[in-house]
């Protein structure tokens, strides 16, 4: 049973706030920026628990590539800020909130028995054995990835190839539509 550090608490709070900002932001650019913040902070959180490799990848790819692309497109399309439907004003928001709460509850209950001191492996034992650093090192991850998860790995590679081709094709300028604005 390892107590969370202060850093983790702070990071947690920040993550939640940025997430709320993403969801409720009026301006699409603000939503995108706070998304980037969330992802970055999550990466930091990974570092605090010793998952260095995953954290690196998260910051590099997730925060650094995907979000940038997102902001890129937001600016390309020049989306205007619009009215966010205020929670509580319309019943649909209550419903959405309710469903989210159900999700949360369900998930928590599902994972509850596995957490805490009832779990076979609790963090105290892990920390004592120092297995954590080994288990989440790049070496361990890559070994697992290339042996046990070889097929998904290769298929994901194909997927990326297909995605690249797909993006090129979809993003092409159509002769019938101009880049200046509305299509025919």
């Amino acid at each position, binding site marked *: 049973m390892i107590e969370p550090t202060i850093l983790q608490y702070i990071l947690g709070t920040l993550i939640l706030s940025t997430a709320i900002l993403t969801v409720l932001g009026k301006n699409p650019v603000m939503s995108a920026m706070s998304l980037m913040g969330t992802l970055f902070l999550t990466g930091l959180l990974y570092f605090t628990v010793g998952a260095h490799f995953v954290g690196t990848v998260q910051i590099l790819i997730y925060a650094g590539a995907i979000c940038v692309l997102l902001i890129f497109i937001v600016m390309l399309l020049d989306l205007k800020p619009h009215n966010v439907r205020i929670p509580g004003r319309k019943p649909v928001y209550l419903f959405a909130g309710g469903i989210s709460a*159900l999700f949360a509850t*369900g998930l928590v209950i599902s994972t509850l028995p596995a957490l805490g001191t009832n779990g076979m492996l609790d963090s105290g034992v892990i920390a004592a054995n120092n297995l954590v650093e080994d288990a989440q090192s790049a070496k361990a991850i890559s070994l697992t990835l290339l042996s046990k998860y070889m097929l998904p790995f290769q298929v994901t590679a194909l997927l990326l190839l297909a995605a690249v081709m797909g993006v090129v094709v979809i993003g092409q300028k159509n002769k019938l539509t101009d880049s200046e604005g509305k299509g025919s």
Partner: protein
Amino acid sequence: MDEVFAIQNTSLLRWIILLPLIGAILNGLVIRSKNVRLSGLVATGFSAAAFFICLSLVNTYGLFAEDFAQVIDPWFTWFSVGRIHVPFHLEYTPLTGIMLLVVTGIGTLIHIFATGYMSEEKSPFRFFSYLNLFLAAMLVLVLSSNLVGIFLGWEGVGLCSYLLIGYWYESNENTAAGMKAFVTNRIGDLGFFVALFLLAAHAGTFQIQELITIFATGAAPIEGGIILAILACLFWASTGKSAQIPLYVWLPDAMAGPTPVSALIHAATMVTSGIFVSVRLWPLFASQPSILEWILWVGMATAWLAALIALTQRDIKKVLAYSTVSQLGFMFVALGVGAPVAAFFHVVTHAFFKALLFLGAGSVIHGMHHDQDMFNMGGLRKKMPQTHATFLIGTLAIIGFPLTAGFFSKDMILAKAYEHGPLAWGLLLLAAVLTAFYMLRAYTMTFWGEARTEHAKHAHESSLWMTIPLMLLAAGSLIVGFMETPPIIFDIHALQTAIESSWYGVSGEIAGHSGHHLSHATEWVLVLITSVASLGVAYYSYKKFLTVTSKESAKGFAAELSQNKFYVDEGYQLIIMKPLSAVASASWRFLDVVVINGFLHIVRDGMRIGGQVLSFAHTGNVQTYAWYLAAAVATALVFVNWVI
């Protein structure tokens, strides 16, 4: 009795059936020629081939011997289900041998006649194909060794009868007549079906030999009531096929078909199948005397009714048709008084002279350019001498002129009727007298007197194709009678020997009956009374109709009844057809339109409304679908964690 009946196997019998069948297929499906002579000759060839095989069979195995070798052709097993085993075996007994000769012989002659008669037919291959098919089916009926095979032939001839009656299908009248024949026959066949089912349930066999040797002699336990029921059902089937009351109504209408058809099917062969089967199964009938009384009186009533109707008919073919019904009644009377030999004797002689009469009528009709009304004929004896001579011989045979074939068979029936009781004899005698009257009326109006219309004036004799068969049949009508003569004249009993040895050693005596024979004196008296009465009435009829003009026809209430066939057809329409069609129409209107359609409409509307309702879920908006997804997953999570 095994030593008497040495069983011999031969595969010759199947060719008797196969040859006409091949002829039918060749003519109908392969050659399909429009040339009348060609199709006619092909058909006649196959029919004649079958006749020669029958002749050779008779030559090899004999016909009139007291102990003959039972000849069987074990062809194939038709079907075998549970304890019911039905083989398709053919059998030759003296009885079937005689019938074979009659069917194939007269059949061949009629084929030859038809080749001449149908000379203006446009697609004759159809006709001759059907004719051969009929022959094949009839031969199946004659040769089969069990009742299921007989039933196959029974239905087959019914089918061919329908096909041939409605042969000139362009006219609605002809097709209606064909339908009437088929449906009425079908109603009779129901009896045959029920008989077969009863046999399957109680006897377990359909083989005629087994039925006679085991059940008629009482060797196996089977209730008398069941046998009586079976025989009653078979008799019902015979009223359909052999045109007795109440199912005779199809036969007069069947005259719509070509005349060779009427000669072959409705005079010589098909209509006698009922009697043939009954004679074949005679020991069974003999063991149940109660049904014999019934058969006797139904036959008598039919003989009278038909004779009364024949008195006033204008169409020559209709006269002959009702005459056939009446003569069939005579044959059933013979069965009823317990004289199967007399009945079958009359079958054979009737085949000859009735076919002769029909073919002669055909020749007349051909010469009169298809005018069949006798009131329009007259004086044809000078224009058509051979037809006249042969028709005269046929008429003499049917009225029982001494020493013709009809004389011997009719007198034998009358003698046996007298043995049964004077009432039956008296009524039958009167019916014979009526026969003499209407036959002479027909003969005189056609061939004597002055020609009453142009057609009659310009009639000419028919070709050799038609006259040669007429002459051969006339010869037969004179000779055939000598196979069975009464004790006072030549005392020949060849036919009796043949038939009695066809029952596998079982006697044909009626249970509880002692046959008493007539003294010679009584026999002479009977013969004299019959001859005098018939000939006297014949002469009177001849004189009366010598001077008839074309406008005359009988008047009066009795004549009206007779001319309109006693309104039997109209009665059937009223009592049976109208209620049936009302029921059918009502059930259509209710069951089909309301119930079934209603159910289908409900299904259809339900589907439509359901689809419309469900399509509200398709908003086309991605977020809506995401809602559905999220709701489902959330419910599942909660369900799994809290409820289970």
